[in-house]
């Protein structure tokens, strides 16, 4: 069948600059570039280009430019190029349109409509370069009260037995991305960066590769519906366990790692045969209720002797507040909320862009609900899904989060250009792939440095903004919605966010 789908991009090569070195040919995993020996010239197949910018970045003479295809259909606010292309693709394949990364629609972001306060005159601001600033965060269940005892000679000792806690030096962790959806070298980079920065990286649902067990003190191991690579050693290896109920990019649906991506190494870690599809069912079939969830939380606590916090991750959905209340009552040490802009290695585009709610609203609603019920201390709240700057982290903490998870931002620091083609497994940046030829493109030493650099930069920025507010501990920002004001929001939106209008 002749395809009616128009190429999305046009590859242009400046003949005066091109030295026919073939770097572009080697760098592109989509066969966009080729060299014609007979005519000694470079050719492009624009229809293959995904605009990842790998060739343009590595071209030694900057000869390549990639532009959106100017052959646009007649402009139409409703029948956009994306809509028309999607329909044509589906007509030709009869399939579900897949995509990668998070929702790319502009109308679902509240962060940019929230503004942070600063001190002027009445409450002096603090210079974080010269004065101590505290970003340290503890994730885990906090007691209702502390029992203290004065002991002669020893001073005051704490009698309350504390629940297990994770100690974070900055309130930012790396969110779940499975080994299989991303490469081993990315996992190594994440594990090393988390260790260096005093924070944590999440394995995702694909298990923990043997060579990474040594980073266990900085690893959160995930247990999802497929239970891939979940065995007693794996549970023991991590510092915390996360039960994945849902993901912001695809609430309510399962996962599916295609057989092509299940290579020898992946099959070893997931403990499934080579080349078979790795199917994660939509629900966890031992969890059909909050009571069942409690059963799995305590199964995991029993399996690890009550030494590790157990997180429960849900996609931000309409009644997230009531669900989160149930999760806390079920005994979770932390609730993870993943908003609609959260990324994915592969999801139906229709689900990614239409199912779920923005993290800002879910977070505000959950924090408020847990406070109203007097159980906010019983679990930490972690916000995820579309956190793209240190300001977003600070705003999330002010809305009630204890910490944030980042994933897309972490991948961008490694080279990702958010081309949204993760599901092809051919990532030219060596990130969302299991192809060994491509995987080599990430050097874990450099990757860890880049990730640690990102965490350091964001942490410094958070301290700058806190100092500007005259606050020297992140604890004082947590749930402190007075430091936020909203702009361009309706009364109802402000009410749910629990913030006042700018100028108010």
């Amino acid at each position: 069948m002749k395809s009616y789908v128009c190429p999305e991009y046009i590859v242009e090569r400046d003949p005066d600059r091109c030295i026919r070195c073939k770097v572009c040919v080697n760098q592109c995993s989509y066969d966009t570039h080729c060299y014609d020996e007979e005519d000694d010239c470079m050719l492009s197949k624009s229809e293959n280009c995904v605009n990842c910018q790998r060739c343009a970045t590595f071209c030694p003479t900057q000869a390549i430019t990639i532009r959106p295809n100017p052959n646009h259909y007649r402009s139409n606010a409703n029948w956009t190029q994306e809509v028309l292309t999607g329909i044509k693709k589906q007509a030709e394949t009869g399939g579900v349109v897949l995509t990668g990364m998070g929702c790319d629609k502009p109308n679902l972001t509240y962060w940019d409509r929230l503004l942070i306060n600063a001190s002027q005159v009445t409450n002096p601001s603090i210079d974080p370069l010269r004065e101590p600033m505290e970003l340290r965060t503890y994730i885990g269940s906090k007691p209702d009260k502390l029992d203290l005892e004065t002991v002669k000679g020893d001073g005051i000792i704490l009698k309350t037995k504390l629940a297990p806690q994770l100690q974070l030096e900055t309130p930012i962790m790396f969110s779940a991305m499975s080994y299989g959806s991303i490469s081993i070298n990315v996992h190594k980079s994440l594990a090393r960066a988390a260790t260096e920065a005093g924070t944590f990286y999440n394995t995702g649902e694909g298990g923990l590769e043997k060579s990474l067990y040594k980073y266990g003190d900085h690893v959160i191991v995930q247990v999802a519906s497929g239970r891939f690579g979940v065995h007693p050693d794996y549970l023991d290896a991590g510092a915390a366990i996360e039960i994945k109920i849902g993901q912001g990019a695809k609430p309510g649906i399962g996962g599916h790692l295609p057989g092509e991506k299940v290579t020898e190494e992946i099959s070893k870690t997931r403990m499934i045969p080579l080349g078979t599809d790795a199917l994660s069912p939509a629900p966890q079939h031992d969890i059909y209720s909050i009571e069942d969830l409690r059963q799995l939380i305590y199964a995991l606590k029993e399996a690890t002797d009550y030494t590790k916090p157990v997180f429960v991750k849900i996609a931000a959905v309409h009644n997230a507040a009531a669900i989160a209340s149930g999760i806390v009552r079920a005994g979770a040490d932390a609730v993870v909320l993943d908003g609609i802009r959260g990324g994915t290695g592969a999801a139906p585009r229709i689900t990614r862009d239409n199912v779920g709610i923005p993290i800002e609203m879910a977070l505000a609603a959950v924090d408020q609900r847990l406070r109203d019920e007097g159980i906010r201390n019983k679990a930490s709240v972690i916000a995820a899904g579309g956190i793209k700057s240190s300001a977003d982290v600070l705003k999330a903490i002010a809305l009630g989060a204890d910490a944030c998870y980042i994933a897309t931002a972490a991948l961008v620091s490694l080279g990702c250009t958010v081309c949204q083609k993760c599901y092809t497994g051919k990532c030219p940046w060596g990130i969302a792939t299991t192809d060994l030829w491509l995987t080599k493109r990430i050097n874990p030493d450099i990757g860890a440095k880049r990730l640690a650099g990102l965490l350091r930069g964001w942490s410094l920025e958070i301290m700058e903004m806190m100092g500007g507010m005259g606050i020297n501990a992140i604890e004082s920002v947590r749930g402190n919605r007075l430091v936020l004001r909203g702009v361009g929001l309706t009364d109802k939106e402000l009410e749910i966010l629990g913030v006042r209008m700018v100028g108010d």
Partner: protein
Amino acid sequence: MTRKMVTTCEKGKLAESLIRKDKSALIDATGIYYRDLNSLLRSLDSEGIEKIQICNVYGQRYIGTNLDNHLRIDIYGTPGNDLGAFMNGANITVHGNVQDACGNTMDHGQIVVHGRAGDLVGHSMRGGKIFIRDDAGYRVGIHMKEYVSKRPIIVIGGTAQDFLGEYMAGGVLVVLGLNMKGEIRHNARFVGTGMHGGKMFIRGEVRHVGEEVTITDLTEEDTLLLKGLVEEFCGYYDLDAEKILENKFNKLIPVSSRPYGNLYAY
């Protein structure tokens, strides 16, 4: 506190909740909260006890979870949900029925049940063996896996309910239908829905199978494997394997290891 060892648990409440003798222990679980019971099992495990009898078990969960050594445990009564969850080598015999999710994500070891089982027997099981004498509930063997030498096995003496072997990715599931009178026809529907690995041997006919499943005859290798499993099963329950093997068995295998390969538009 060495006392005379009681050899059976069927004698009502014991005077002491824990009796030890050499490398064996006897626990009366009456009124013991599951967390305390499991903590006691772990401490006995670390002390080097090899054989434990637990009597008067009334719904305590997670028995067998997080034990390091290859303990032999005899349970009298009804253990609660998640018996042997994430279990790593213990050998459990239940003199009674088991509830839901017996052998959940079990890694290694064995569970023999002298009675019936609830739903989700061997959910995501990755190794070890489970034998159920009577019937089992819904979604038995869902998402069982297999990897190299790790091959989980479940044998059900009676019948099982809908979604038997759903998403099955590996392992062996045997259903014998021993308690059925006349023609053996299992009433379960959607057997093997989403199946993409492993195999099921079903004695008699199945009412309804999932789209991803095909029914074939047993090969010579299958017959040998089945014979071994049925003989092992019969050994635990004192049954006649030869008689059971006289009936026709159907073999259920997945049509493809990639059932959902063509769902997407790239």
